[in-house]
């Protein structure tokens, strides 16, 4: 073929096959390390292993047991309380910081933006260790301050305060991260909106409240859903604080902690798998219900 166009070379990988090859590495890992454990957890959960009877099929028994297990539900309730204590404060503060930074009406803007984000670089475990020291009754600085002032020492690890104390650690870890997300969304709002608002006589505060906030509200909803999912997975913080507050934080304090204890302290692998599976389902239902509520609210 002699023509003006260069001759098309034949390639081993055609246009039709290429997308599947590009997707292959991710898909294989996805199947092996996300789907397979899910299927396996389900499979484990429909059996029961005992020393006497060996492994036998029990159908939905483990799921029914998990759904009726007060330890499991206590864990879920602790985490719902945790989410209610933690998420609104975090979102409010993160929004406040983002709006202030975005308004530009502030000194040392870059310094604040970077340093308020730094806790994101601190692993949850390390953050919990540090706060554990700060909370500590033996040599924590708050106890030292109270003693020096002859005040009763605050007890951050009492039955009534331990959950807010954990929430505080989570706030410290994630507020800066949420702030960066909101800040980026605010920066993407076109500047001509601001000019239009100024023409209408709106001041900065009203502009932030009436124009900027509604524009980034969908983004905020998404981050709240992920925060709820994250809350229900809480493990590292209570697991570590168990060392210094064993009476307040039991080994079934959160569902993940419960599943971990069932598997590694009691060797109840089948039931542990059922608890993990039910937790996944409960998480999905709660996120879905939250989305429904928000959607209904925004339509009303």
């Amino acid at each position, binding site marked *: 073929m002699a023509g003006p166009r260069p001759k098309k*070379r034949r390639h081993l990988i055609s246009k039709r096959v290429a997308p599947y090859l590009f997707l292959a590495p991710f898909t294989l890992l996805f199947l092996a*390390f*996300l789907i397979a454990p899910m299927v396996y957890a389900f499979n484990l959960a429909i059996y029961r292993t005992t020393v006497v009877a060996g492994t036998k099929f029990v159908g939905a028994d483990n799921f029914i047991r998990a759904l009726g297990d007060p330890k499991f539900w206590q864990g879920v309730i602790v985490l719902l309380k945790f989410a209610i204590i933690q998420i609104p404060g975090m979102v409010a503060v993160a929004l406040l910081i983002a709006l202030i930074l975005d308004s530009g009406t502030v000194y040392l803007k870059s310094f604040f933006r970077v340093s308020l984000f730094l806790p994101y670089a601190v692993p949850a475990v390390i953050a919990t260790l540090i706060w554990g020291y700060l909370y500590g009754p033996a040599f924590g600085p708050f106890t030292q301050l109270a003693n020096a002032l002859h005040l009763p020492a605050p007890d951050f690890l009492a039955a009534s305060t331990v959950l807010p104390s954990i929430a505080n650690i989570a706030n410290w870890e994630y507020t800066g991260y949420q702030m960066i997300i909101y800040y980026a969304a605010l920066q993407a709002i076109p500047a001509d909106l601001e000019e239009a608002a100024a023409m209408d006589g709106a001041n900065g505060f009203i502009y932030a409240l009436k124009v900027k906030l509604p524009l980034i509200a969908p983004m905020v909803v998404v981050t709240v859903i992920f925060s709820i999912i994250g809350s229900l997975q809480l493990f590292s913080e209570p697991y570590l604080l168990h060392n210094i507050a064993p009476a307040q934080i039991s080994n079934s304090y959160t569902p993940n902690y419960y599943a971990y204890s069932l598997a590694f302290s009691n060797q109840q692998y089948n039931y542990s798998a059922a608890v993990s599976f039910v937790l996944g389902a409960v998480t999905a239902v709660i996120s879905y219900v939250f989305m429904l509520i928000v959607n209904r609210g925004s339509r009303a």
Partner: protein
Amino acid sequence: MTIVGKSKRSPSFRRNRWMLSAILFVIWLYTILPLFYVVVSASKSNNDLFTTFGLWFSSDFHLLQNIHDVFSYQDGIFSRWLLNTIGYATAAGVGAALFSTMAGYALAKYQFFGKRLVFAIILGAVMIPQTALVVPLFLLMSKVGMVNTPWAVILPSLVFPPGVFLMRVYADDAIPNELIDAGRVDGAGEFHIFSALTLRLLMPGFATVLILAFVATWNNYFLPLVVLSSAEYFPVTVGLAQWYATATVGSGGGAALFTLVLAGALLSIVPVIIAFIVMQRFWQGGLGAGGVKA
């Protein structure tokens, strides 16, 4: 951007500026307090840790001694933990970024059978709590003899569905279809088009996924705690937590570990904090776009 309806010079602008800066300063104090505490406490002797005020330095500056002790305790296993963490996070970060980029590119730039289904499944997977799968994952991996190896930490960390989502959006925007068509007209193969023409344009997105997956693996605790049993494979998080648990037991030499844990905590967060300050340009641009996953 300036605040609406006010010139920068006006007294009310300056008053607002002071007030808003003061609010941020209070939040900054709260944010910096634990970090300051680590620096202060890591530079005390174990005795001073218990006897001097926690939020200020003692007269005896003990930081270098503590760092030396951290690296020599238990035959210097701490340096091993640090290297493990760096290795796991780098492998997971680079791998997750590469596979997410390839998958995102395919979803954005090709039409193929099953595309919508694949994308829907990946979107759904963003909602799956991966930590709920840790215990089943351990049980599954113990069947194939993979537990207590570095692979048990690295391979599951390569699965990062939000990265695929982010790269699909990014590739959609960043790569003009004409570029790919031009490559085909010139007779380039599909893989050559990806690696030589478009990968360069995808780099900012790639860097964002790399940072997100790197930090997620660096910070991970539950997965390595469950799948690893030999201390030689531990990342810093699992190793330090174990020292901490020993320290809180208190009896024997336990209490002497308190300063080591603090010095170890300082050593393990300083590199990441420096990396974050140096790489500001990357995360500030990308995190917002990809910040759907907390």
